[in-house]
């Protein structure tokens, strides 16, 4: 019982994750946050968000994992059906807390979030603006 109480008190809320993510994003101006919560699964479940991005803006996509879950979040940016960018480079196995995206085409894009190896996870994704080109 005591353990449950302890866990509840210390569980990271989504709001806290947003604040952490805002700090990770550094000087970039906050635009929007995305809350990601997925159960474990095979193939890995995904959470998808449609967004409009504008030409000549350098965006920053930041991801922050909850320490209460094992899953490490991956962001993939798509246009229609092409992957354009990701926070996880398979070839090197390297994870990035944020990536920058220099947009040259105003239009609709998709943010696709999943957790590596299909583990359950809680994370926040942040869209912010680094500046104009």
């Amino acid at each position, binding site marked *: 019982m005591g353990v449950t109480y302890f866990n509840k008190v210390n569980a990271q809320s989504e709001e806290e994750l947003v604040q952490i993510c*805002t700090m990770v994003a550094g*000087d970039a*101006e*906050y*635009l*929007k*946050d995305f809350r990601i919560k*997925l*159960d474990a*699964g095979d*193939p*890995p*479940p*995904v*959470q*998808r*968000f*449609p*967004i*409009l991005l*504008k*030409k*000549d*803006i*350098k965006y920053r996509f930041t991801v922050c994992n909850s320490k209460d879950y094992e899953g490490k979040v991956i962001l*993939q*940016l*798509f*246009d*229609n*059906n092409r992957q*354009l*960018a990701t*926070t996880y*480079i398979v070839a090197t196995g390297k994870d*990035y807390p*944020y*990536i*920058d*995206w*220099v*947009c*040259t*085409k*105003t*239009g*609709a894009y*998709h943010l*696709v979030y*999943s957790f590596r190896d299909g583990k359950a996870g809680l994370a926040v994704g942040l*869209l912010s*603006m680094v*500046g*104009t*080109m």
Partner: protein
Amino acid sequence: MKKLRFIYYLSLFAILSQVITACNSCSKQGVDVTQDLYVPDSVIEVAPPQVSKAVTEQMMQNISSPVETAALIKGLKIPFNKNFLASTKQAEKFNTNFEKAFALGLYGCDLGYLNMYEKTSFVVDYISTIKRLADDIQVGQFFDFNTLKRLATNNENLDSLILISQQSFNRIDNYLAETNRSMLSAVIVAGVWVEGAYLSSRVAQISNHPRIRETIGEQKTILNFLLALLKVYDKDPSMAKLITDFENIKKIYDEVKITYEVGEPEMVEENGVLTFKQTDKQIIQMDDELYQRLIVGIQELRNNLLKL
């Protein structure tokens, strides 16, 4: 010829079916990135884009952002001009919740412009107006007036001013969605878009910068998504009227031709920061006469909605 046309309409039907049935992009098994938001010019000419309610609601907030519009204008070294902004005195003319939500978006855009140019002396007037409007539609608790006022009055931490302004609007949007009042969110977005397009049109009258011309032209893309969003609520008489107003400017935008050249993104890692650079090109075709009609059309739309 008939066969070709049949295939074309069949393809169109398939695309729109996909759009309409596109689930709310919540948890899905596996990556399934369909074309539910891709609306090429050729399709737009035949039928307006139809986007599922859930998809439009999710992208609502991001359709038009005061921060991005203002940043683009400031990035071109265009000086601040207070005359571009809507007078806060006009706010008294908005009576219904629908009108107040529209005004909330409109003044929110102006607030973004003021914040971007760090004109804190005007900010308090605008956040006071926004707070009143937000209170009137029962979302005032999400607009962090006191913190914004303190930041603006003390001229401190201007990044926080932008952050808190933006987060306040995001919370309002979330709350409206949670309380089944998403239509008001859509109206707020419409207000932001109209004022952003208006600011760009005013800049277009004093600057020949090609990027401003392009900004005016590319509003076609944004307007199409915005109209798709508004049409989700077209049974509401006030919304139907707003859609009619927007359709007038859309008719002019239908003459703008936007094409794209597709390229592969470039990936560069510098100082530990991974940057992806898109190499796609958007090409906007419109002659001077059409450009001028767009500017006039946007300004008439905004001034009518602002009840000037």
